[in-house]
């Protein structure tokens, strides 16, 4: 089928509802009419001029008897990526993705040139994972750029990028990245299968995919890892994980995920092992404090005064005297206050947020205590627990819910209830395996070899084997 350049261009315009940003330009190439179509906002003008328009206009060789499309492709277009489309729809798809279409009169193919304008913000240190020592590069919203950041670190033929397109409307590019000889094939296939089966209008961020990748959709607990840093992603891939990069999102998802990952920090690998062991233990204690402290406090107040040393009991008695609310309501009130302040703080513009945190923390807290609405120990306990959340920022949202449950149980059943709650959570998480990896590994099940990088950390040269806690290719367990 031969095409009529002008008519087809009109046809495409119509199909795209005469979109205002769709530009076209008709050029006479010898005796052939050529129509160029492109979306102005996503097309690199410089590239368009230099690689298409200038060569096209200045071309003076003899073309008689030659196929114009071939001449254009081979002799005129100074572009890296030139594609020929036989059907209109795929050409339109490419046009939407940033290609410039060249419609040649009486030709049977449409030429597509990649002239996508990549608008990226500068590579900056991601706010969610700041490091003291170590690389500061973070992913951006551009998939190509992100892949470039990874490629810069990985010069191996083993590194594989599998491209997918997800989203009926957005047709978002999704890259599944992994090391072929390290990743577990079953896990990889399962991830690909799940991604390919996604039926959704649009994928605006990588978190849109999380629900499709989780085994237990309604669970409170995080089941998919994420990172904003290429060094972390490569580190995780070297352990056998698979990364999922979504165009338009600086957050890269990683699978399989185990709880220990959030206890680890990229800084850990750039610091002294003894210090790291100490810090990781601190993080673990922090988790326990963050989740249980308010619950235990309320339990002690309501049920177990006999556990408290007398002097401490007197201090609490003196400071809680005259508070109009019951201890349970008091703690709930402070937690609510804290959560409101938190929400307001992170959503507010930075310059205003600073003032807000001072108002919230100092004035509100102080006034509430002075007014006798809440007691100082309760404020201190909730504040301490609130601060401790952010020792492990990756789990903060889960912890705040668990803390609330802990408070309710502590107030209803006391320490005994909290202990049962802990066993329940442990029991729940012990069975929370996904993608062939146990959630609480390498503690339960205990994996001796992986203790080198769990709560304690040994030096890099001592970690000769890849972790067994997560599913990876067992034939390739030695780190080369």
């Amino acid at each position: 089928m031969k095409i009529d350049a002008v008519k087809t261009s009109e046809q495409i315009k119509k199909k795209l509802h005469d979109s205002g940003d769709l530009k076209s330009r008709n050029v006479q190439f010898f005796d052939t009419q050529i129509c160029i179509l492109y979306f102005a906002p996503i097309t690199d003008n410089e590239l368009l001029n230099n690689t298409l328009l200038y060569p096209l206009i200045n071309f003076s060789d003899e073309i008689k008897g030659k196929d114009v499309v071939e001449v254009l492709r081979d002799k005129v277009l100074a572009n890296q990526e030139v594609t020929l489309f036989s059907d209109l729809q795929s050409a339109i798809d490419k046009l939407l993705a940033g290609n410039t279409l060249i419609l040649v009169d009486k030709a049977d193919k449409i030429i597509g040139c990649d002239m996508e304008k990549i608008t990226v913000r500068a590579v900056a240190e991601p706010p969610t994972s700041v490091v003291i020592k170590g690389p500061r590069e973070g992913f951006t919203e551009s998939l190509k750029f992100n892949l470039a950041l990874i490629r810069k670190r990985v010069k191996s033929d083993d590194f594989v990028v599998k491209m997918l397109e997800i989203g009926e409307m957005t047709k978002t590019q999704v890259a599944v990245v992994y090391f072929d000889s390290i990743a577990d094939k079953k896990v990889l296939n399962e991830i690909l299968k799940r991604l390919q089966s996604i039926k959704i209008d649009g994928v605006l961020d990588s978190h849109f995919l999380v629900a499709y990748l989780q085994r237990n959709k309604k669970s409170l607990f995080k089941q998919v890892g994420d990172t904003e840093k290429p060094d972390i992603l490569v580190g995780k891939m070297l352990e056998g994980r698979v990364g999922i990069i979504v165009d338009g999102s600086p957050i890269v998802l990683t699978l399989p995920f185990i709880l220990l990952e959030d206890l680890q920090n990229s800084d850990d690998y750039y610091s002294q092992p003894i210090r790291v062991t100490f810090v990781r233990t601190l993080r673990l204690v922090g988790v326990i404090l963050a989740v249980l402290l308010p619950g235990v406090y309320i339990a002690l107040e309501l049920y177990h005064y006999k556990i408290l040393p007398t002097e401490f009991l007197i201090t609490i008695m003196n400071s809680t005297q005259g508070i109009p609310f019951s201890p349970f309501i008091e703690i709930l009130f402070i937690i609510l206050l804290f959560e409101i302040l938190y929400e307001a703080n992170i959503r507010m513009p930075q310059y205003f947020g600073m003032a807000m945190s001072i108002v919230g923390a100092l004035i509100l807290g102080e006034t509430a205590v002075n007014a006798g609405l809440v007691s100082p120990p309760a404020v201190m306990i909730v504040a301490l627990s609130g601060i401790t959340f952010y020792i492990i920022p990756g789990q903060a949202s889960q912890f705040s819910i668990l803390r609330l449950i802990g408070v309710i149980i502590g107030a209803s059943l006391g320490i005994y209830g909290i202990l049962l709650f802990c066993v329940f959570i442990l029991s729940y998480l012990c069975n929370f395996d996904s993608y062939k990896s146990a959630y609480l590994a390498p503690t339960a099940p205990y994996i001796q070899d992986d203790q080198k990088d769990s709560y304690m950390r040994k030096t890099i040269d001592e970690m000769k084997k890849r972790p067994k806690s997560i599913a990876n290719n067992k034939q390739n367990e030695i780190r080369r």
Partner: protein
Amino acid sequence: MKEKKTEIKKKLKSIFSPKKLVLWLSILILIFTVPAFNKSAMSQTQAIVTMLCVDKIDDKIKVAATVLTPSQDKKANFQVYSGEGETLGYAVDSVSLAIGKEMGFAQCKIMALGENICSEGVMQVLDYMTRTKKVGRNAVLVSFTGGVVDFTQAVANLNLEKSLRLDRIVSFDKRYVLTQDSNIETFYIGYYSPISLGLMSKVKLGTSEEFNAIEVASSDSGSAGGASTDMSSTGDGGENKKFIMNDGTVSLFKNGKHYIDMTLDEVKKANIFVNDAQKGTVVVEGVTDHIYNNAKVVVNILKKDISIKPSFKDGIPIYKTDVDLTVFIDEVIEENPSERLLRRNQDFLTNALIAKIKEKMEGDMREIIKYCQDNEVDLLGVYKHFYALENKDFEEYLNRVGEKNYLDGIDYQISIKVKSEN
């Protein structure tokens, strides 16, 4: 049948369907949670007792308790309340009624027993308090002289104004003067042992004149507390101020009844036999040799190693005690101290001094053995040692002489070695 089964299955499935389970769980959580909204802190609903004093006066049990009371004024944190009744239970209840709160004894660190109740027998009181009222068995147990409320108030004042605590004062003793911890558990162990001997610290109550300078007391005892009855006796004016004093006296209890009091001096002598009481001093007089000239020397015991070897020879029990002492010379008192005492690098632990120390200590030990024999109290653990190490012979011996006089027929051999710190 099959239809019924499927029906039951369907019903079960509907009951345990995820949606309904959420409903059930929500109801359950509500059942647990709703009461918590109105629940006050336990420290407000219970009268938290930190010390309880019990005595018997005119056939009635009288109790006084120090109750923790919330107050911004820290001096008002310990309030004393008292009550009386036919039995201990009634007496405690009467205090409860006066305060309008249940009494909570979980924080009760001290149980003090008056002279009258001690001489009548303390086991029932202890049993009631530990079993029914849940007083911890590690609560310090003391006997006291004086009025119940006065004593309680004086101890409360110690807490308030001097930051001193009776339980710590008494426990501190154990390194120096007491033969063992003075708490309910150790008293039980002593009581249930074959010799049925219990020990308790004795704390006295008196006025400043009575105690002269060695008192541990508050200067303004009347300011604190809201005792219901006998408050006045602690004195508002200063004349009647009552103080407590721990002079190291230990009350001995036989079969749960007060038997005899040991003075500090006697306790110290008994302590020579006890490994736990590591500290102590020995004062010897009239030491004369190339260094000392009729000197009075105070020797500090730094370390004590006691080994007791019970044995039988020709049917006679031998209780051999080897004492190894490491000492340090604390003070030397001479009329005209010579320059020799100031010389460096000189061993001041001379043979003459060692001989004096040995003589003094052996004398002390003999005295305490005599004290035990005279009073028929086995303070030194003679029974326990023979029973454990020479069981058969000892049982034969007991059959021969009887349980009462077994201390008399024993040959006590004492060997003391003294060495200096270096």
